[in-house]
């Protein structure tokens, strides 16, 4: 990160890769929302300003746009650190893990919390490069600990799997309630 000796403390003293890009994205986002304020909020006639439903969205979006603009302008003037798109690629890469997470949640109502958690922990451990026997056993152990603590012990509200319907009646109740 390079420093601009003239930059006072209120402004960023260095520029991280991707900072300008993100500041620009937020500025664009706040600008788009601000443009929608007429449609998305209501102005009530004969009501005081403090009681207007539009007041706080206007203050907050106005503030976002103002701070965002100042940040973007200031960040632009600081010497660029290479790696903006490499950083953006990192952000996109994180979506892979989000995808596995969503898949894990989507699998719960189908195969049940116990199997879905074991599968998720096991898969993630392997995906992240932990392939030793100790790591695999740790992942399975952790998954069992989570299910036994939260679903079995604390009875946290997580739905049973459709797969449990195939089990005999007595076992089915236990599976749905505790696993």
């Amino acid at each position: 990160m390079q420093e601009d000796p003239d930059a006072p403390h209120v402004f960023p003293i260095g520029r991280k890769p991707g900072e300008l890009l993100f500041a620009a994205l937020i500025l664009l986002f706040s600008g788009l929302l601000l443009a929608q304020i007429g449609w998305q909020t209501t102005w009530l006639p004969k009501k005081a300003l403090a009681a207007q439903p539009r007041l706080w969205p206007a203050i907050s979006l106005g503030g976002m746009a103002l701070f965002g603009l100042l940040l973007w302008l200031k960040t632009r003037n600081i010497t660029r650190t290479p790696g903006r798109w490499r950083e953006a690629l990192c952000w996109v890469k994180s979506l892979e893990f989000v995808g596995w997470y969503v898949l894990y949640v989507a699998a719960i109502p189908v195969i049940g919390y116990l199997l879905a958690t074991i599968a998720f922990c096991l898969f993630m451990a392997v995906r992240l490069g932990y392939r030793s026997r100790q790591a695999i056993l740790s992942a399975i152990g952790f998954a069992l600990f989570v299910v036994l603590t939260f679903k079995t012990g604390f009875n946290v509200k997580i739905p049973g799997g459709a797969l449990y319907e195939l089990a005999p009646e007595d076992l089915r109740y236990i599976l749905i309630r505790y696993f």
Partner: protein
Amino acid sequence: MDLLLSSIDIIARWDVIAALFIGSIGGVLVGALPGVGAAVAIAIMLPATFMLEPIVGLTALLGVYGSSMFGGAIPAILVNTPGTPVNALTTYDGFPMTQRGEARRALGLAYSASFFGGIFAILCLMIFAPVLAKVAPMFGAREIFLAALLGIVLVVVTHRGQVLAAGMLACFGIFLQTIGIEGSAYTQRFTFGQSWLQNGIDLIVVVLGLFAISQALVLFLDEDKNFPMPHVGKKGFFHTLLELRHFKRVATVGSGFGVICGMIPGVGEFMSQFMSYSYAQRTSKTPETFGKGNPEGLIASEAANNSVPPAAMVPLLALGIPGEELTAMMLSVFYVHNVIPGPALFANQMDFILALYICLILLNVIVVAFLFLATDTLMKVMLIPNRFLGMMIMTFSLIGVYSLRNSLTDIFVAAGFGVFGMILKRLDWPTSPVILGIVLGGLMEDKLRTAMARVRSPLEFIERPIAMVLFAMIVAAVGIHFYTLWRDTRTSKEEGK
């Protein structure tokens, strides 16, 4: 005496004691894990505490909040990596002490200073509680609005070097709480015709995304860190408790800074640590050894940061205003149980407040005893690989998000905030302004509406003494900030010539 007995009666239950043990030992564990921290742990625990009674849930969360900094000192001292961000200054003198073979002494002094800071803060607040109980009812709608505004202003201006980003993110937080059907005229705001947006964006979903999922993503994208574990030695820690008496001035002043900074919304641990460390260095006989393993620096940092949690409970309990992200999360526990913190709680339920402070004293005792006995075992926790930890955080976070409503939409929203939080963390932008914006934004809107209905002119808004003091503090905070900006600019220009 009746008050004390009533408070003891509130906490003399097996579930409160269990919550105290689980929270405090769990807090030490998460604090000792670089890359987790109290915010992640509290975010994960939050939905589970909704099922518990307020005192039980709050005790567990307070346990994590108050004890994570104890645990965070371990990696800060041993491997130069703070377990929680507020242990950053501990590395300055703690790690050099480890390098010269004084790891056990450094750990012991950090535990003793933290313990001293925690107990000092609780005793201060217990002594001042009757005064606070008298002052709290003087806070009407306009005073609470101004105190919340002060919190927002301070959380922005105290993020030195990131003021613009903090301001933008605080405004983003305020905007988020406006989404949905507003409670006054029942009109829709930024719902875009989507039914899932009509009830607004759930704070817990945002918290879990912004703190837990984002941290998991940060860890996934990073390399594993291999810490070379130093030799700590076998001698006990108890002698360090006695050694602290040689540094009682630094520990007392540091704790005092912690109490003051903790009570002011938006300031918190970082400011108290820097003030305490600067004081210790300025008044030391050997200021040149600071940053090179001076025990005074270590004590100043640890005493200050651990005295903040009890003090931070004051604006939360007395005014319903959280000073930082962790107390903002705790506020939701009150709301879920329909216990509204504020002047009435402080004035009428003093036994409940006192019970919380007794819990804090017990937690400090439990944590120190645990650390004195189990530090060697705790060091092994630091060996869990970072990315494996990320997988664990992700798995835990599902329980919080999904158990709320079994909603896939919540998962998508949490994941969205997870990615957003991950970007903020990678850019070193602060996340706390978003949460404070959400919590304080709603409060400000509500209180401004109530207050403005009763005033005839803007000047009348600040005519009451407390309102005037709060307004003066806001003006002073902004004024000091711009003065510092002007001074820094002038200094850098003069240096450039």
